[in-house]
């Protein structure tokens, strides 16, 4: 590229690498098909950036194609994730129109934003590390842009300079991170994702949790203060499903205005802090039964906790659980009717069985016991249950006779309602695994569970888990038990996994959850009484001043050691001569200095020095520095270092030169 305004090959390579690094963290957060599409377009655009520009029509076609693909991939819903994907697509496409320096500058500025978009999806350490790498790549490209049209320096010097710049920025950056006043409440909400994350969703039909039950990503982590309840009491209550349309269980809609459930003032059985992974939903899972709703949360009529806004980033709450021995002994008629409703035309056999057995049993409790015994005797737990047709409960109870928690809880509630007992499905999680390294509990998506609540006259809502009647080990068995039985590699790796997850938990509580409240706490810990936004601001200014002083201290140090050993040796040589009184003037060339040395003294010292100076001038400033000059340079450097004035000639300052 002869055009000095054009972009030469090293610059184009740096830009391609910067875009690759910038795209990476966000690409890993996107659904596979969309990510693959963007990667493909990126490869084409990258090739174009390095080789030759694509024709305008093809670029336009690519823009339309990739935008369409992203929209289709997200089902034509524009959410945060779809927006991020479009941003990535445009970023990689920008690579294909690198015409001049201005294009390159715009590309570098956009590339800086990509890691931030990734952080809106995930705040894990891996994403942060990739994001920092991306920023470094972009800074490298900017450095090359600033040097243009000069070629980039050797890689070691370039990367060293980049690392030095980042290290030097660290004091100021950390002060900003810790002490820049945070917003106590957001000014605007985070846009929603178009594609929901997997997890408990507020609706359920038998058999649709198969994927969820194989997903081992954490749903939340819990740290108990004091004793924890026994394993078979670890029911983490989530959405309560009351409406049944014959096929699907859903939450009752339009009942948000109902007064919250009356919770019993029973003894507190557990105090804990729960850290929920982002779900994009408002449910807050709480140990059954929560004692109440602390301020940012609200309690529904179905005794479920909800947050005001969807959980779009890690959220932490301190909660209490109370013992449950039936609650809400008085059920208003409207709610009673809601919990007895069954759609007509579904599951005739089940309803028949319910009516018959209820009248035979004579009392609700005996009827429930008989149903559970029937489940236990004639039904089996199986995660690979066959799909069901129109009458889900009929087919499950009388034909296939195998299923998992969804089948059991759904059929059980239908049996209860058909027999005139108010009942509902409760979804959530059970159990969890203790992390022995970190001392906390991890509950994963695979711990998802559905159980039921029935309302008995005079007692109120009581938890009944029909799946536990069949296969208690499938519910409460923790990973520990399964691994303990199998032994081998899994058990041996357990401490490693525990350690990894405890690092993640520490990351979550120290980095991700750091906010305005923690900031105030930090200052109080340092003895800064009554820390409000103003005090935090003052602390920030003071600390930033100190960080700036530190940075300046480093920047103002005299220039670095000369890298070229020959020049280093030459300067040391000049210093030795200067002690003798033979000073080279700054505006004097090495050659002129040699002439002056010759003229100055008849001593052998001066003549040797002059010869060395001449060799130096020839080697360093000669127009034709040949290939074989390296050995010569080393030899001269040795000679310069080895040059010593003879002691007898040092004493008199007789022949000052200069």
């Amino acid at each position, binding site marked *: 590229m002869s055009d000095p305004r054009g972009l030469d090959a090293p610059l184009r390579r740096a830009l391609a690498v910067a875009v690759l690094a910038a795209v990476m963290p966000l690409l890993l957060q996107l659904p596979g098909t969309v990510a693959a599409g963007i990667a493909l377009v990126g490869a084409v655009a990258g090739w174009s950036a390095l080789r030759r520009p694509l024709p305008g029509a093809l670029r336009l076609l690519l823009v339309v194609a990739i935008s369409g693909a992203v929209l289709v991939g997200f089902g034509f819903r524009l959410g945060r994730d779809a927006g991020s994907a479009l941003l990535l697509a445009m970023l990689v496409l920008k690579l294909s129109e690198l015409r001049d320096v201005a294009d390159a500058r715009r590309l570098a500025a956009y590339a800086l934003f990509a890691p931030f978009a990734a952080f809106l999806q995930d705040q894990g350490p891996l994403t942060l590390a990739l994001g920092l790498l991306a920023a470094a790549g972009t800074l490298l490209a900017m450095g090359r842009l600033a040097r243009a049209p000069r070629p980039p320096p050797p890689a070691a010097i370039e990367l060293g300079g980049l690392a030095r710049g980042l290290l030097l920025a660290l004091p100021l*950056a950390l002060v900003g991170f810790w002490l820049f006043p945070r917003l106590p409440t957001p000014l605007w909400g985070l846009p929603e994702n178009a594609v929901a994350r997997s997890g408990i969703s507020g609706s359920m039909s038998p058999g649709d949790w198969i994927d969820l039950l194989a997903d081992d990503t954490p749903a939340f982590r819990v740290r108990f203060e004091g004793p924890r309840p026994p394993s078979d009491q670890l029911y983490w209550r989530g959405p309560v499903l009351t409406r049944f349309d014959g096929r699907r269980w859903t939450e009752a809609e339009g009942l948000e205005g109902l007064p919250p459930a009356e919770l019993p003032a029973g003894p507190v059985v557990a105090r804990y802090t729960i850290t929920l992974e982002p779900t994009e939903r408002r449910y807050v899972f709480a140990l059954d039964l929560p004692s109440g709703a602390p301020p940012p949360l609200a309690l529904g009529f179905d005794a479920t906790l909800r947050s005001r806004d969807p959980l779009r980033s890690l959220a932490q709450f301190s909660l209490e659980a109370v013992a449950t021995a039936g609650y809400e002994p008085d059920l208003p008629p409207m709610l009673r009717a809601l919990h007895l409703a069954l759609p007509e035309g579904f599951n005739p056999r089940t309803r028949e069985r319910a009516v018959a057995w209820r009248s035979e049993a004579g009392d609700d409790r005996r009827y429930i016991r008989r149903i559970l015994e029937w489940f236990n005797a004639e039904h089996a737990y199986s995660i690979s249950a066959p799909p069901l047709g129109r009458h889900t409960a009929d087919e499950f109870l009388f034909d296939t006779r195998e299923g998992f928690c969804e089948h059991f809880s759904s059929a059980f509630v239908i049996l209860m309602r058909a027999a005139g007992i108010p009942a509902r499905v409760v979804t959530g999680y059970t159990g969890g695994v203790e992390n022995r390294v970190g001392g906390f509990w991890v509950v994963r998506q695979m711990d998802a569970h559905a159980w039921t609540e029935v309302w008995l006259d005079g007692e109120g809502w009581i938890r009944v888990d029909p799946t536990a009647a069949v296969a208690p080990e499938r519910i409460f068995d923790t990973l520990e038990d399964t691994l303990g039985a199998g032994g081998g590699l899994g058990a041996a790796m357990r401490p490693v996994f525990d350690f990894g997850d405890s690092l993640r938990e520490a990351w979550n509580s120290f980095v991700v959850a750091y906010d305005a409240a923690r900031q105030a706490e930090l200052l109080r810990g340092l003895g800064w009484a009554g820390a409000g936004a103003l005090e935090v601001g003052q602390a920030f200014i003071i600390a930033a001043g100190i960080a700036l002083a530190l940075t300046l201290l480093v920047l103002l140090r005299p220039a670095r050691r000369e890298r070229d050993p020959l020049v280093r040796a030459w300067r040391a040589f000049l210093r030795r001569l200067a002690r003798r009184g033979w000073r080279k003037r700054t505006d004097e060339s090495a050659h002129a200095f040699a002439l002056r040395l010759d003229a100055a003294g008849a001593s052998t010292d001066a003549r040797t020095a002059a010869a060395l100076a001449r060799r130096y001038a020839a080697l360093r400033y000669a127009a034709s520095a040949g290939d074989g000059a390296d050995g010569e340079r080393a030899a001269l450097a040795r000679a310069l270092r080895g040059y010593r004035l003879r002691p007898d000639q040092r004493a008199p300052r007789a022949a000052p030169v200069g």
Partner: protein
Amino acid sequence: MASDDAAVPPAGGRDRLDDGLARLPFVRGRAPEPLPVTLDRRRIYVLPTGHGLLVGTVLLAMLLGALNYNNNPGLLLAFLLAAVVHNGALVAHLRLSGLTVSALQADPVHEGGVLQLRLRVDSGARGREGVIVRGSTGVEVFLPPEAEAPGGGGEVRLAMPAPRRGWQAVGRLRISTTRPLGLVRAWSWIHPAEPLLVYPALEASPPPLPGADSADAARPRAKRSGDDTHHLRDYRSGDAPRQIAWKASARVDRLLVREYEAGSAGDVALAWASLRHLPYEARIARLARWVVDAEREGRRYRLVLPTGTLGPARGPEHRHACLRALALMPESGA
């Protein structure tokens, strides 16, 4: 000192902003000042470039978003980048601070030629990588490598057209850098007081030198056939193209000029008064031409001007004195 090839193209749209800034009342380097000048913090200015403004907008958006969502990785990234940019501004400032411009020279050229400014720059304690000097005409040149190293020094060469004879002001020079990231530009203006001399233009095809004896005023063309009557010397600025020995030049790959044996010719009187029939500037151009020709032919010459008489003498000093006197002739007819 191979800095001529390091010329970078002028900045373009920024120039007007630059001029506006330079006229602000508090700006240093507005009035001419004697060299040497050492750049210090009082005369170094730092502002974001266009690229810097764009990146700043992106960073601001990031910072606001991260604060609003309390997104800690995002906040860390935004602060880290902001700190890098901020330190970049410090580095750019320090890259100029302590730089000394100690001398300015240019060999005189004739009107219409191009002055080659030689600016002596000493780097002082710090490295000066990527520092650019811009002349008042907009041409930009990197410091030579010797001047970029700490403790080094070198000459920056700037080309500058010389449109008028006489003293020419150097104008405002801008010393700037956008390193390390191209996001901020640190710059300083210096306005050297040293004027540069521009010789008068030479008349293209003048009549022969006036002489005491017109036979003596030998025409070069008449002697062209005899090879031994002249020797070759290197081209000097101001030599007429027709005197260039093209064939010989092609052989040795540099310009050679025929020079004629001198000695026999007599003194010449170049008198202002003898050219009354010519317009004012044309008289100057003719006299300048004659000075050059007489010097080339090795004759002693005397320049008689209304302001005084120079010579008779010959040699480079005399030639310079005559051309200087002609260059400094007052404007038309005064």
